[in-house]
């Protein structure tokens, strides 16, 4: 078992930097969700911090082995109040991961609770090596 790294809670949010310079249509901040990935015997578990997200705001797509997580979060604005002090901005989340072939891509489960997105990526059954019998002619 790999040693768990102790990280402090005070990690600032990190904005998404688009390599291809495509612009987003939403005028919002967009952050990279902080993610833990760990592997057990029969699945890979991915946990991402997506504060403010609920079941309907999370969009997960899987295309050509690339798993994309897109979260559109509603602005947490209090009508009739002025923001007098600010340490964080709320914003959307976006991140993609490349999956290996050892994951059963038809059986991925995703759960959102308490602002935490949890993906269960089950591993495929180990493929048995096929033995080819060589016949003598």
């Amino acid at each position, binding site marked *: 078992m790999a040693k768990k790294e102790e990280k*402090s809670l005070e990690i600032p949010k990190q904005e998404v930097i688009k390599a291809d310079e495509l612009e987003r249509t939403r005028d919002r901040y967009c952050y990279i969700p902080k993610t833990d990935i760990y592997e057990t015997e029969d699945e890979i578990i991915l946990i991402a911090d997506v504060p403010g997200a609920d079941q309907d705001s999370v969009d997960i797509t899987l295309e050509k082995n690339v798993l994309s997580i897109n979260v559109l979060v509603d602005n947490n604005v209090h009508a009739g109040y002025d923001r007098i*002090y600010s340490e964080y901005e709320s914003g959307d989340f976006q991140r993609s991961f490349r999956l290996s072939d050892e994951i059963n891509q038809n059986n991925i489960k995703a759960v959102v609770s308490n602002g935490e997105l949890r993906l269960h990526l089950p591993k495929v059954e180990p493929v048995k090596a096929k033995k080819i019998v060589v016949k003598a002619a």
Partner: protein
Amino acid sequence: MYRRFRVPSIWREMDQLQREMNHLFEASGGKRVLGSPKYPAINIWANEESQFISAEMPGIKADDINIDVTADTLTISGSRVHDETVENTRFHRQERGYGPFARTIQLPFMIDTSSVDANFKNGVLDIKLQRAESDKPKKIAVKSE
């Protein structure tokens, strides 16, 4: 800004410029602090009557958050716990922080401690604080004799 019968003071102009710049930055949503000094990072929303303190605390259960108030301070404390580790677990990536936290905030006004309302939804904590009746500004009538 140049006035005819006055020596233009460069310092005055500089002060003016600084004020304008400060105003420009403050206009977009209160005082900004990049990277919170402590966890959790907070935003404060206020009006005459009450204020909201909001904080993003993903992955923490509502039961694990403690909120303590006095007349003019608010303490948010709790702990984010690791997942139960199953045998033979191997970490590929670990970016999220864990552990206990506590933060005390000095409030800009005295509050009514009996009417504090805290709501935790989707990893976002919203605390509503009512301004104490005794602390509200009083209007003073000006008499003329």
